[in-house]
């Protein structure tokens, strides 16, 4: 099984994130880069599929040179090799362009299954799985919290607002995962040491067959028009219990769709 897992390096949510004033892109140098949280679950799922069905796990990352930190960590967790799509021409690409660039890179790696997070913590568009499967012309299973592979069939459970759907498709397919799907492993020291020796292929635009006129900030289909700092956190809502405290809290939680 040729399993490709998409890994995005994002700024650590624990350090402050800022947009640059000159071009409205994220100031990626200002924060520590980490693996997008949901992508750790994607990696874990890829490793589990490999452990159960054999095959190889390839990490695919599009991002600046610094993203090698995240690639190495994914390899330390147990992935076999990596492809790093890195080119100044890609900087500032929007979701549409990112999906195109990743599609081109997938043309080089091939795949039976592409696993990715259901959304990133920085841009949070949550559209990549859909865009990618459309471009690739393969089925998409999004928001999966359970995946089972049986020959060329893939069965999954996807979370919805009202419960979950059971869906089934044939491979090759694109699957995006949520955090309930598994518990990502911590890399072992042996894994960390082994990661050093695993192959990482670096691809520029030309290597991946990406048309420079279709990527990068200048060619983006969307544009960030304005931005402002997030407002300071408002004071919490205090519920005074006059015998109906429980009901009020339940009401509040329901209004936020927590229950």
């Amino acid at each position, binding site marked *: 099984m040729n399993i490709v897992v998409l890994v995005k390096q994002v700024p650590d949510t624990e350090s402050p994130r800022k947009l640059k004033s000159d071009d409205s892109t994220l100031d990626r140098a200002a924060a520590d880069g980490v693996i997008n949280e949901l992508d750790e679950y994607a990696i874990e799922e890829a490793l589990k599929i490999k452990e159960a069905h054999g095959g190889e796990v390839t990490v695919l990352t599009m991002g600046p040179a610094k993203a090698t930190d995240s690639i190495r960590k994914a390899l330390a967790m147990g992935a076999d090799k990596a492809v790093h799509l890195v080119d100044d021409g890609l900087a500032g690409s929007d979701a549409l362009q990112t999906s195109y660039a990743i599609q081109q890179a997938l043309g080089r790696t091939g795949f039976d299954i592409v696993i990715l997070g259901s959304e990133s913590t920085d841009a949070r568009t949550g559209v990549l799985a859909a865009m990618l499967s459309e471009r690739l012309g393969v089925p998409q299973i999004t928001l999966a919290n359970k995946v089972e592979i049986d020959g060329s069939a893939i069965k999954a459970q996807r979370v919805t607002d009202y419960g979950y759907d059971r869906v089934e498709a044939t491979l090759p397919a694109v699957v995006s995962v949520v955090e309930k799907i598994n518990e990502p492993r911590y890399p072992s020291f042996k894994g*960390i*040491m082994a990661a050093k020796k695993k192959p990482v292929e670096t691809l520029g635009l030309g290597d991946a067959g990406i048309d420079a006129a279709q990527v990068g900030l200048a060619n983006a289909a969307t544009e960030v028009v304005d931005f402002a700092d997030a407002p300071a956190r408002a004071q919490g809502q205090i519920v005074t219990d006059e015998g109906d405290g429980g009901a009020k809290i339940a009401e509040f939680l329901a209004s936020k769709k927590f229950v």
Partner: protein
Amino acid sequence: MIDFTLTTEQEELRRTVERFARETVAPVIGDLYERGEFPYDIVAAMGKMGLFGLPFPEEHGGMGGDYFALCLALEELARVDSSVAITLEAGVSLGAMPIHRFGSDEQKARWLPVLTSGERLAAFGLTEPGGGSDVPGGMRTTARLDGDMWVVNGSKSFITNSGTDITAFVTVTAFTGDGEISTIIVPNGTPGFTVGKKYSKVGWSASDTRELSFEDVRVPAENLVGERGRGYAQFLRILDEGRIAIAALSVGLAQGCVDECLRYVREREAFGREIGRYQAIQFKIADMETRAHTARLAYYAAAARLLAGEPFKKEAAIAKLVASNAAMDNARDATQVFGGYGFMNEYAVGRFYRDAKILEVGEGTSEVQRMLIARALGLPPA
């Protein structure tokens, strides 16, 4: 020659354990500590991560790392909790290490895979009711060869990891003849080997420490570790190394005090401002950071000599002395910074305060460290 920067791989290990401690240990350890419960789930998770195999070769299930890698992991764990850190320290450096260093091929093949994976723990039975500092002097335990069986009689005090559900065996230091000391593996469950109930301890409350007694305990002759009569040299080697590990653990506690204070002094207000604005508080924290930093340099230096195959006895003693002092001093200062809350068990610094004291005692008291340093300087024994 002068380079104290971690390699990329060491830094990755450090960060992985830091994250594990924060995500997996911190949320549950307070309760376990309060109830005096051994952290089985945490130990299992550490096993999965390979922490029990850090300094051992891959052929026995180890991670192919070294003693310094173990120290880095201990420091990061102890920043959050010392019961967990000492469980790892004793499991690796006192439990599995004697088998790795001195054991026969059969002993290694039989025991190391389950020890390096963290599925089982081994304990180090040296200290006795009659004394821990003066081991031959205070030691009464004997092992007599009867045909092809050792017959062990005696008792041991304060033995870490000796009575958990996953303890495999204790290596017992015993007289095997007149002035002859040897080390013998005694599996838990052997008839005549009684594991006492847990001590009620001032600190390290989630770790397992017990008194052991041996009454005509019979184990096969091949349970001898290494050569007969080498027991003294063996435990000295294990303790010399172990001091670097205890120093790393102490640095972790000292740094944990700084971490906790940095958070707290920005939140807590007194006389109209954050207490972190008062110089008296800032200086305390600056002193705490200074102690943690210098103690870290001391254990890095001792570990560097160990890895280079150079003599490290004096450096290890210095590291342990400096680091345990740093831990005690920082714990006292950190609880002071926390005011009344520092005296509450639910705050990590309260736990640190209770956990710090033993660092000046275990694996050689501070007096013993000073004795070792004085001897290394050529001063005569008493």
